[in-house]
């Protein structure tokens, strides 16, 4: 059984003792701070490689704050993103993950989600992959379209505020539904820390 304080490494992880040690310390603090299920801890794995930080997990709603904190740590420590921008990026991250867990995986037992974070030449890119039903949800796609056309937050639609927030924070968003749904978001960064 996966130990709570020894997260699994994904294939392609490039070892860096200093960085990995700091990450492990942070991970252990976070697992003590949040009440995480054994299933979630078993599902969690990460990969740090040249220019890319990646993790996968099967979160429930209660585990989103853990992933949010983890993403903030990666943005600040691995990708050198400024605190102000990192604070906004984790907002966008939470919105996506919450939508996936709430809507895409409503009737599913396998809430797999992979997050990939990149930063190169001051361009930040976030990719979120899932295998839920959201990509085939006509109401969700209609909501995205409505936000694009009106430019206003859809206050009357559940989930609308979150999607609008994502569009305000990120420069570009593309969504590819399929067997694996992929949401890509990019943001030009003005400064790093």
């Amino acid at each position, binding site marked *: 059984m996966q130990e709570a304080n020894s997260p699994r490494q994904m294939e392609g992880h490039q070892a860096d003792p200093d960085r990995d040690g700091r990450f492990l310390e942070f991970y252990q603090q976070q697992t003590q701070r949040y009440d995480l299920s054994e299933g979630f801890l078993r599902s969690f794995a990460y990969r740090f490689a040249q220019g890319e930080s990646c993790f996968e997990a099967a979160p429930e709603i*209660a585990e*989103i*704050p853990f992933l949010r904190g983890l993403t903030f740590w990666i943005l600040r420590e691995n990708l050198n993103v400024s605190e102000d921008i990192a604070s906004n990026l984790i*907002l966008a991250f939470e919105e996506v993950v*919450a939508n996936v867990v709430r809507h895409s995986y409503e009737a599913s037992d396998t809430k797999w989600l992979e997050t990939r974070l990149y930063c190169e030449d001051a361009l930040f890119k976030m990719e979120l992959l899932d295998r839920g039903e959201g990509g085939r949800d006509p109401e969700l796609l209609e909501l995205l379209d409505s936000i694009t056309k009106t430019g*206003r937050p859809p206050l009357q639609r559940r989930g609308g*505020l*979150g999607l609008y927030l994502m569009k305000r924070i990120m420069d570009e968003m593309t969504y590819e539904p399929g067997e694996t749904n992929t949401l890509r978001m990019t943001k030009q960064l003005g400064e790093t820390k």
Partner: protein
Amino acid sequence: MSTLDIQMEEHGDVLSIALAGSLDTDTADSFDEALTARLEAGWHKVVVDVEQLEYISSAGIGVLVGSVNQLQESNGDMYLVKVPPKIEQVLDMLCLMELFSVFDDRNSAIAAYQ
């Protein structure tokens, strides 16, 4: 899971709420339940002190927006107190600061209802 501390006090006919921690996807439902119960019990003058709120997501904002809209439609209101810059920034991004009257301290907000 996140932590959201909710403290409620009654000041005459004004319900004063203080929030501390994270009002996010994980905690928004419990806040919604607690607030809805009070609104259904007849409270329609509400003050929410958010000085100790460290994080808010759209889920939390949705609860605040839904509540203030409901209150204003029934001649009530919800005032915010001591909005931290990070929280104000999120509300600004959603063009929602205009929905709320904001005060620097709780007593001023409560007095504004008189």
